[in-house]
């Protein structure tokens, strides 16, 4: 298909190469350098989308990231489908597939259009006043209908195969925006040694200069000056140019978030490349040169395809060599539209009229008049006509008089320019309203930042260039790099965009006069919101949804403000400004997630024994960040059979557990004993060398936080273990107290969690199994009693051998350096097998300890449990005047009778295993809303006892021992008898082995 509207020459497109692409199934052609929008316009295609609510036909309004209308879906195949992309930003590549959105069955014939005729119904805030009856209808009927109507594009259905990257960056001067101001700032800032980064959201740097054909800078045509400037910057090693990169967030301490699109513009990208990369950039100094956005005029039918911003038309003409129409009518309140008119006329587009809303014409008007172009002052625009494309426009004298309809296929408008202060506002800078611009501009910077050029209201090209140079030099100097001032470049042949109009055009009706195009918010909606008492701009925004579309109101915010001001009789500054939030333009979730996916989402921590367990087909479970072997099923076993076997083997002969994940802390120093005495509830000061003690640590609120075993290796050296989950928190709490509460204590802490792997050897055969492997430690009961620690060697490897038991059996915990653990484990496992034992996992470990009534922190405790609740009062050192949590234990509620206490629970049906979390109740038929006596904390089938067992926390449980209560089951309740939590070997003889 021929691109009828493409100029024979000119533009920044590579005509040598032709690209073909599809839009709604139809094949078109374009060239490298085109955007999807410019390529479609070259074919005379203006209808690109449908509006959010009324499904009105919409075309291309703008040429950049401010575009509210031309949203499309791009499908690269294989799950690579992206909704809501702006055709004005989509770089064209060969084979691109684009679809229009929010229409059915077709873009040119959309049944949703009916909404437009019911506009009165769907006006702002309507939802809040109806759809309430009957009561269930909202959920059943209205909401589904509204939801189906809402939304623009379709979310992808397949997982995204693309990769995303992250990069932390640092620089001395970050410049946002590669237009005239930004380029000059970069030139000036990089004259010294400063590391300069220039970020631009477009594929090519240059900003407004990319559209410039008439102006000259420093005696050269603008395009030449631009090329030379970019060459200079590229040649400087200290400068990095980031193109296709949007600085979307400005955070504390000059931390700027930048989304770099790496492959989006490529037809066939290298699969190894990230699709996008997130730059988290910390800059010493920042220069914001973010430019300005042209504002639409507000009049009925200002949204028809073919109605366009004047500056955008100029961009399509000069940058893409595309005529946006054949016959144009221009309505403007700003001089810049005359430049567009001039360029269009020169390109052979008939300019039927320039209707200026202002009473006095600018000087430039006479030049155009001289070229035979009709120019009229004091005009207004009353509306447009047409279906899928504007057919005519009605203009009239602003102060009354007959209107005339002018046939045209293009209406260009300019209401003036809005400085892009989004990032400045995000940096928490203070803005002020500039009456001469009809816009807000930066006033006071809060961070080490300076704005330059159009984004601070300097719309004159010469001013902008000079301002950029000033800002760049100032930034480099502030960062500590002396640089010279650049000479102010002379500029000729550019029109300064003076003049503006805000709000509704004179005499124009408010109905279907669009302010926020994408969300279909009209001047009437805003007036109505004000009438209904919504005077705060944030209220208007939320009530009408103006400014809340995917363009973040870049083209609509000021007109909305002006309309609210007019409706409430206030000045714009009194109405205020809605706060700008990140991101400046929408940012891909994947980009923000970066590398963090799958295995890199969160580290999976494994022990040195892990490869062995994996090879033996262990079933694993996640415990915090650790992956631990839960059980070791044999080929014919299910989970319960495996666990039963592992438990039986341990009780009858021997079991081997990988306990390496236990936290370990080496506590060293002359005051180590004193410190532990204060940190744990136990009496530890007098703990003998070579002895161990169970340690219980509380929070200052009196509730159990962690437990472990404390072994004394020397007068000033302790080996302390913590729970797997509590390792980091306990070490951090210890450091906290040492550094901030008790700095007088001479104690130093070192985490040895990962240095020592731990092999727990438990069961009657433990001593026999280990004896051959350990030569220099006397394992005899008398020489090595329970709760003691010895240092020696196992298989020649240095070990710290603990005689401790978490099973109630004769037990040892072998600590060996991690890199040797695999080899030691192999040898011990062989011995265990030889002794008729088995390797067991965390599930059997849970069962074995439950049979003994040992509590597990985080299972029997939940942050609301005291030592007394667990029946562990005995661990509290007698006569200790203080320890962490002691004072809180004296609080009324922690001494209250009737607190929940740890008990054993036996179901009358021995086969029934309760569910953990089941509530304990007094009667079989609880009335709804009745409160529980407690809950089941642990429940297992016990092979040893040949029945199920459970532990629970029950109000005044120890007084109720022997009582019969009820526990919930999935289907109802079950009878349970309260018993001692020690189900097995209550006398504790087996530990003595």
């Amino acid at each position: 298909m021929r691109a009828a509207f493409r100029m024979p020459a000119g533009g920044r497109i590579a005509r040598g190469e032709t690209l073909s692409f599809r839009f709604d199934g139809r094949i078109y052609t374009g060239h490298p350098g085109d955007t999807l929008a410019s390529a479609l316009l070259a074919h005379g295609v203006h209808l690109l989308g449908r509006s959010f609510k009324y499904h009105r036909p919409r075309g291309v309004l703008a040429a950049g990231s401010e575009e509210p209308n031309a949203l499309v879906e791009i499908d690269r195949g294989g799950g690579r489908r992206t909704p809501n992309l702006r055709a004005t930003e989509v770089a064209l590549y060969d084979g691109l597939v684009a679809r229009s959105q929010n229409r059915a069955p077709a873009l040119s014939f959309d049944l949703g259009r009916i909404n437009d005729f019911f506009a009165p119904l769907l006006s702002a805030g309507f939802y809040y006043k109806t759809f309430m009856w009957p009561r269930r209808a909202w959920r059943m009927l209205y909401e589904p209908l509204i939801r189906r109507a809402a939304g623009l594009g379709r979310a992808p259905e397949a997982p995204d195969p693309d990769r995303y990257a992250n990069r932390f960056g640092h620089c001395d001067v970050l410049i946002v925006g590669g237009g005239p101001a930004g380029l000059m700032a970069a030139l000036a800032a990089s004259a010294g040694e400063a590391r300069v980064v220039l970020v631009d959201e477009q594929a090519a740097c240059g900003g407004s200069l990319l559209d410039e054909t008439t102006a000259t800078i420093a005696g050269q045509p603008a395009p030449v000056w631009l090329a030379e400037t970019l060459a200079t910057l590229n040649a400087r090693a200290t400068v990095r140019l980031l193109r296709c990169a949007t600085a979307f967030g400005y955070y504390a301490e000059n931390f700027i978030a930048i989304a770099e699109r790496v492959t989006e513009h490529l037809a066939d990208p290298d699969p190894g490349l990230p699709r996008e990369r997130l730059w988290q950039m910390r800059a010493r100094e920042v220069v914001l040169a973010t430019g300005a956005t042209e504002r639409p005029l507000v009049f009925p039918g200002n949204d028809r395809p073919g109605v366009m911003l004047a500056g955008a038309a100029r961009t399509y003409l000069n940058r893409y060599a595309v005529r946006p129409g054949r016959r144009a009518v221009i309505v403007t309140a700003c001089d810049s539209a005359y430049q567009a008119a001039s360029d269009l006329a020169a390109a052979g587009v008939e300019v039927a009229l320039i209707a200026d809303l202002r009473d006095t014409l600018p000087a430039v008007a006479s030049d155009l008049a001289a070229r035979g172009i009709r120019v009229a002052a004091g005009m207004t625009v009353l509306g447009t006509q047409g279906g899928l494309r504007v057919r005519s426009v009605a203009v009239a004298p602003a102060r009354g008089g007959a209107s005339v309809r002018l046939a045209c296929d293009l209406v260009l408008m300019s209401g003036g320019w809005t400085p892009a202060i989004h990032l400045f506002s995000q940096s928490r800078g203070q803005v002020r309203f500039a009456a001469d611009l009809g816009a807000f501009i930066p006033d006071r910077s809060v961070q080490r930042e300076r704005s330059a050029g159009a984004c601070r209201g300097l719309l004159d090209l010469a001013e902008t260039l000079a301002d950029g140079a000033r800002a760049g030099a100032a930034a480099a100097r502030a960062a500590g790099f002396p640089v010279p001032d650049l000479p102010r470049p002379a500029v000729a042949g550019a029109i300064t965009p003076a003049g503006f109009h805000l709000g509704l055009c004179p005499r124009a009706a408010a109905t279907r006069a669009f302010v926020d195009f994408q969300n279909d918010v009209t001047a009437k909606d805003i007036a109505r919101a004000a009438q209904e008492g919504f005077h705060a701009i944030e209220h208007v925004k939320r009530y009408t949804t103006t400014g809340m579309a995917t363009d973040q109101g870049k083209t609509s915010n000021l007109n909305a403000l002006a309309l609210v001001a007019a409706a409430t009789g206030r000045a714009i500054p009194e109405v205020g400004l809605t706060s700008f939030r990140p991101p400046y333009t929408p940012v891909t979730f994947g980009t923000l997630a970066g590398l963090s996916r799958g295995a890199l989402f969160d580290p999976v921590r494994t022990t040195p024994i892990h490869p062995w367990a994996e090879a033996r087909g262990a079933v694993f479970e996640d415990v915090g960040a650790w992956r631990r072997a839960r059980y070791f099923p044999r080929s014919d076993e299910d989970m319960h059979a495996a666990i039963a076997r592992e438990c039986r083997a341990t009780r009858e002969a021997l079991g081997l557990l990988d306990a390496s994940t236990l936290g370990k802390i080496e506590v060293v120093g002359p005051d180590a004993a004193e410190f532990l005495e204060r940190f744990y509830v136990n009496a530890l000061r007098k703990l003998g060398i070579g002895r161990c003690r169970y340690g219980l640590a509380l929070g200052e609120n009196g509730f159990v936080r962690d437990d472990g075993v404390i072994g004394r290796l020397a007068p000033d050296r302790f080996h302390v273990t913590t729970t797997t989950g509590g390792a980091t928190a306990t070490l951090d709490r210890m450091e906290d107290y040492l550094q901030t509460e008790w700095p007088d204590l001479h104690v130093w802490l070192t985490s040895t969690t990962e240095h020592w792997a731990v092999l727990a050897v438990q069961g009657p055969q433990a001593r026999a199994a280990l004896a051959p492997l350990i030569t220099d430690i006397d394992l005899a009961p008398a020489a090595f009693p329970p709760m003691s620690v010895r240092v020696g060697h196992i298989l020649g490897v240095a070990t710290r051998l603990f005689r401790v038991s978490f099973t109630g059996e004769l037990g040892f915990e072998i600590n060996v350096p991690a890199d040797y653990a695999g080899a030691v484990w192999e040898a011990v496992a062989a011995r265990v097998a030889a002794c008729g034992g088995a390797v067991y996992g965390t599930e059997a470990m849970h069962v074995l300890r439950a049979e003994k009534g040992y509590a597990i922190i985080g299972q029997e405790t939940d942050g609301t449990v005291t030592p007394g609740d667990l029946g562990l009062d005995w661990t509290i050192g007698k006569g200790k005047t203080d320890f962490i949590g002691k004072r809180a234990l004296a609080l009324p509620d922690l001494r209250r009778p009737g607190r929940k206490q740890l008990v054993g629970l036996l179901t009358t049906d021995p086969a029934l295993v309760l569910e953990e979390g089941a509530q304990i109740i007094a009667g079989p038929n609880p009335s709804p809303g009745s409160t529980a006596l407690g809950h089941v904390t642990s429940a297992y089938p016990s092979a040893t006892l040949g029945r199920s067992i459970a532990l629970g926390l029950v109000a005044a449980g120890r007084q109720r021992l022997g009582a019969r209560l009820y526990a919930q089951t999935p289907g109802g309740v079950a009878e349970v008898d309260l018993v001692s939590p020690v189900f097995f070997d209550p006398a504790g003889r087996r530990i003595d082995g």
Partner: protein
Amino acid sequence: MLLIPCPYCGPRPEIEFSYGGEAHLARPRDPAACDDAAWGDFLYARTNPKGIHAERWRHAHGCGRFFNALRHTVSDQFLITYRIGAPRPEIAA
């Protein structure tokens, strides 16, 4: 991400630090001497000011040291850092 001036390592990114809450809440020398109200207030009552806040930070993934800082809770800007145990510096808002 804040940039936090560690008194030992210099300015470092926030994710290297852990927050320690309000500073200058010394644990009573003799907790037993506190009545329930005093103990409850020590544990839980916080100034939580909108303005300059004296707070504790620890360079957990750096030098490991706790230190105190004055930070403005509206601008989030750090005004000064100082040693644990040192008195709160006088500084104008």
